[in-house]
């Protein structure tokens, strides 16, 4: 599979701070959902900003869809990537919902006649078309994140980065946003990089990378990662609910099953366990 983002031996530090990344390398495959998990300060949001060229590397290269991230390519790179940031309030630029979706299009010098069609299509695809004349003060956090996603979809990017995009939402809003991104990913053949410390969000990914103090300490499928909940706990991350339940069951001697399961698999497994006893 083609690598759509290649991070090649990068080094970076914030001004007057020790080196955060030292020779870090990471590839993102086209069409995958990659979750990057880690504690606060592990550098996961910084990595997203480096990929989008919002901050400048000390050393190394980052390539996005064949383009190196540098001063000349910066606007082309950014047109391939859409980022949904953490705080819904701080990425709403427009005065109303439709103005906000149009903001990116205005930057890319789209024609006015085309803009209206694209705005309508994007807002319909996230289910916010009926709210187009609302001002942000009259929207919930989840609705604002939907608008942010519409603004990204409008520019038809290849990559969506969710930078803790669901961390300020309630559980329901979180679930809805993740389902929405999953659907848009399938419809538009997108690559998703989700930066999160929500383990359950990471459990839905194709691949999980664990970042700790600027270093990749593990990389595997969610199943592989969550089969070792102790390792997660060591670096201050929680294990998913299903792993915790399995660990508790084995502690009580109910079963010896240790491998990770998602919700449905766990339910099926418990039913089986009960019926055989």
């Amino acid at each position, binding site marked *: 599979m083609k690598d759509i983002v290649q991070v090649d031996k990068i080094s970076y530090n914030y001004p007057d701070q020790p080196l955060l990344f030292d020779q870090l390398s990471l590839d993102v495959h086209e069409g995958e959902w990659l979750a990057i998990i880690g504690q606060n300060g592990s550098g996961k949001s910084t990595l997203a900003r480096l990929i989008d060229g*919002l901050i400048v590397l000390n050393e190394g290269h980052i390539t996005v869809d064949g383009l190196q991230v540098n001063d000349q390519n910066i606007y082309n790179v950014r047109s391939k990537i*859409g980022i949904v940031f953490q705080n819904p309030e*701080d990425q709403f*630029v427009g*005065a109303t919902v439709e103005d906000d979706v*149009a*903001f*990116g299009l205005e930057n890319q010098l789209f024609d006015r006649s085309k803009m209206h069609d694209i705005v309508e299509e994007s807002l319909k695809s996230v289910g916010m078309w009926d709210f187009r004349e609302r001002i942000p*003060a009259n929207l919930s956090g989840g609705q604002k994140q939907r608008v942010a996603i519409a603004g990204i979809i409008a520019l038809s990017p290849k990559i969506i980065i969710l930078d803790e995009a669901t961390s300020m939402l309630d559980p329901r809003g979180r679930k809805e946003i993740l389902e929405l991104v999953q659907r848009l990913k399938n419809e538009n053949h997108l690559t998703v990089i989700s930066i999160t410390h929500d383990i359950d969000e990471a459990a839905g990914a194709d691949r999980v990378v664990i970042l700790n103090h600027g270093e990749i300490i593990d990389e595997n499928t969610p199943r592989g990662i969550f089969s070792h909940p102790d390792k997660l706990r060591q670096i201050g991350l929680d294990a998913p609910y299903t792993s915790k339940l399995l660990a508790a069951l084995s502690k009580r001697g109910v079963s010896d099953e240790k491998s990770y399961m998602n919700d449905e698999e766990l339910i099926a497994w418990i039913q089986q366990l009960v019926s055989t006893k």
Partner: protein
Amino acid sequence: MSNFIFGRYLPGHSWIHQMSPQSKLLLSFYFVIIIFFANNLISYGILSILILIVILLSGISIMYFLKGIRPLIWLIIFTVLLQILFSSGGRVLWHFGPFSVTNESLINGGFIFMRFLLIIMISTVLTLTTTPLAIADGVQTILKPLKKVKFPVDTLALMLSIALRFVPTLMDEMETIMNAQRARGVDFGSGSLKHRVKAAVPLLVPLFTGAINHAENLSTAMEARGFSDSEHRTKYRQYRWQVKDTISWLFFLAIGAVVIFIRK
């Protein structure tokens, strides 16, 4: 305060609502100038009828307009009284020390009152039928010629629209901070003026920190969405000059000519 800026707009599809914001803005300015040319009963009469027609055309209840006067009522009374008591000329009807009331000062007082009333009415029509965003866009259109002298018109308009967009956000935060302080026993509502001002200072620091954080995050988000500079962008909204604008202007120009013609 948030109601003051945002709750004022009343959605609608009337003649006035449909006019373009730049023409409404300019027309309001023009009307204010005409008011200062009026100096007799007939011209004030004509202008009052004109403003009544405008209010009827806006399709908004007259109550909203009367509400617009309320916050200014003391200023109006004070100015009118000043005019009545201190202006001279004409037949003296009553006097006491430096104060005197003449028939002319009464008339002038009446005119001043009418001026206030008409100016408040026209500006209320403007804010009730035009969204703040449309007003910002109107200002941008009007200032466009200044681009020739390198004045950053589009940057100014973008700044204005972002500032308006963040007013309710900052209001909410203010409320949160006030509640947090109240929970710690701060009393904002009572005490001397000095005491109240002192209580307000601890509100400002967190509010400013918050605003700076918003600004920083917003600028990152704007950059991520391909923003480079505000002078080279296309525009999603456009407010075209319409036939309704032309007709309204012709009507207002004619009235203006009459008012100047019958000036004493």
